[in-house]
């Protein structure tokens, strides 16, 4: 079919350059992270070739043995998981109630919750940093675990609302007729069916936590309590000394798995997004 082939080609001609521009920084990170110190500053070999001593995994080794990077990764995961748990516990019932049980006021509340998601940390970090200091949580991961649900709950509730709306009512009604209470139907029927949607929310909530920068930099200054989004920049860059190879390795490591997860769950995200407040 010649027409299909022409269509394919045209699509690639448009989409290809976009993909190259968007992905180039990551190629560049990868290449830099595999270079030896000597090779990195040899402009002959920039940007496509490797010279003496390269490619090497030395930068990765340095990152994990001579810096606190592994520690920051662990902190990030800890904060992310804790926030995900809090978010799910609070958002799943709320999302369900907004999708099924409430009438008009529920819809208004749903949109309201979503709009709260748009209130940025930039507006809140000043008073919150004072409050955090006041209650003695400064330099502790607990400060982030406490504050992050402020933006993850609105986001997750809203997305979950979209997923729950797409579940056929008949399924729970059948359970209700069989004598189950609504809460029981919720836990036994609705949540298991929505597992893919819930998983999507887990992934995007987790990545919101990894992404957060303003609170993390305002609340935490002790180096072993830092998370990756702030630790790399504030600890691995000292004055004019840049360990570029290690820096690029450090930025690449969290990015790739996140991108793979995004790609795998994108269609579900879109379904939740269009099923939510905008439907």
């Amino acid at each position, binding site marked *: 079919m010649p027409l299909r082939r022409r269509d394919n080609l045209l699509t690639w001609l448009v989409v290809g350059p976009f*993909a190259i521009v*968007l992905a180039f920084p990551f190629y*560049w990170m990868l290449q830099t992270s595999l270079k030896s110190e000597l090779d990195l500053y040899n402009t002959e070999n920039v940007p496509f070739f490797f010279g003496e001593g390269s490619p090497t995994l030395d930068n990765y080794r340095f990152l994990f043995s001579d810096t606190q990077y592994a520690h920051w990764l662990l902190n990030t995961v800890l904060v992310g998981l804790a926030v995900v748990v809090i978010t799910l516990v609070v958002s799943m019932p709320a999302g369900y109630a907004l999708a099924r049980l409430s009438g008009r006021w529920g819809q208004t509340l749903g949109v309201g919750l979503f709009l709260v998601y748009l209130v940025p*940390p930039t*507006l809140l970090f000043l008073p919150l940093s004072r409050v955090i200091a006041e209650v003695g949580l400064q330099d502790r991961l607990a400060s982030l675990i406490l504050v992050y649900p402020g933006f993850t709950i609105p986001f997750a509730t809203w997305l979950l609302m979209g997923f729950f709306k797409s579940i056929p009512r008949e399924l729970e009604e059948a359970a209700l007729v069989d004598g189950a209470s609504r809460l029981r139907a919720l836990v036994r029927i609705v949540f298991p069916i929505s597992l893919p949607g819930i998983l999507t929310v887990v992934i995007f909530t987790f990545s919101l936590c990894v992404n957060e920068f303003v609170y993390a930099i305002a609340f935490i200054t002790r180096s072993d309590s830092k998370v990756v989004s702030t630790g790399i920049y504030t600890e691995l860059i000292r004055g004019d000394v840049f360990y570029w190879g290690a820096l690029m390795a450090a*930025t690449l490591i*969290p*990015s790739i798995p996140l991108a793979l997860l995004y790609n795998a769950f994108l269609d579900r995200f879109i379904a939740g997004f269009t099923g939510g407040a*905008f439907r």
Partner: protein
Amino acid sequence: MEAAALPRRRRRDLLEQRRFLAPALIAPAVIFVGLLVGAPLGLSVYLSLTDATAGSLTGDFVGLANYTSQWDDPNFRTAFRNTIVFTLVANAIVILGASILAHFLVREFRGKWFIRFLVLLPWAAPVALSTIGFLWIFDSLFSVVNWTLKALSLVDQFNPPQWLGEPNKALAAITTVHAWRLLPFATVIMIAGLASIPKEVDDAAKVDGATGLKKLWFVTLPLQLPIATIAVLFGIVFTATDMAVVYILTRGGPFNSTQMLPMWAFQTGIQAGSLGPGAAIALFLLPVLAVVTVLMLLFARRVEVT
């Protein structure tokens, strides 16, 4: 008789349950959000009206003095102007790129999975991390941008541009990073919009003889407009309130020329310890966000209708 009464009673039970159950299920979310967003927002407004400094949560009431003195401050003016410039330019680029990209990415083609992975990278990668990548891309000595420009003989070999060291170039660099980062997200929202156009519309357009550009202009674009607006509004909020990109690339320098509101609020409120003025600076963002919010609500409603 019994058979008819049973469902009615059940329905009534359900209704009673529902009246109690719905608020009970929603309450934790509302309380959480009220405490973590509503209260600090109120506190922020209060602080902006006082002369509070770091180390305390109270101060003497000074009225609007923090706002007026900031308004007269040249750094604040630069920050205010830059915030608007970043936001508008980056989002103009994003919306143009995203509409083209989305149009092609909804199609099925060979290698789509891989292309989509590459396109999603800037959105999935934590912004503070990818910006460090750009710090290296725009490096003063080993910039790959300059290497390319030199190879093409477009710039002076011995005096290449200092992307982060000269005011206008630094502004361009920051805008580029914002646009680069937002493009995938806007594309995804546009794809969602395109995917929600019913197949019947497509068929109807075909029957009416609308194809190619005609179809794009009269059918696809009008249907895509509301969701595109939502993409833009998200984009505006994300760009105007982001601090990570400027913090990492320039810290507002050189000489405060790339200052923007969140960065200036951070430096004033946290680093210099002037809590009151810092809060006032951040709150200058609020009117912008309020307008965006109202527009978003209006468009959300319109999407609901279609």
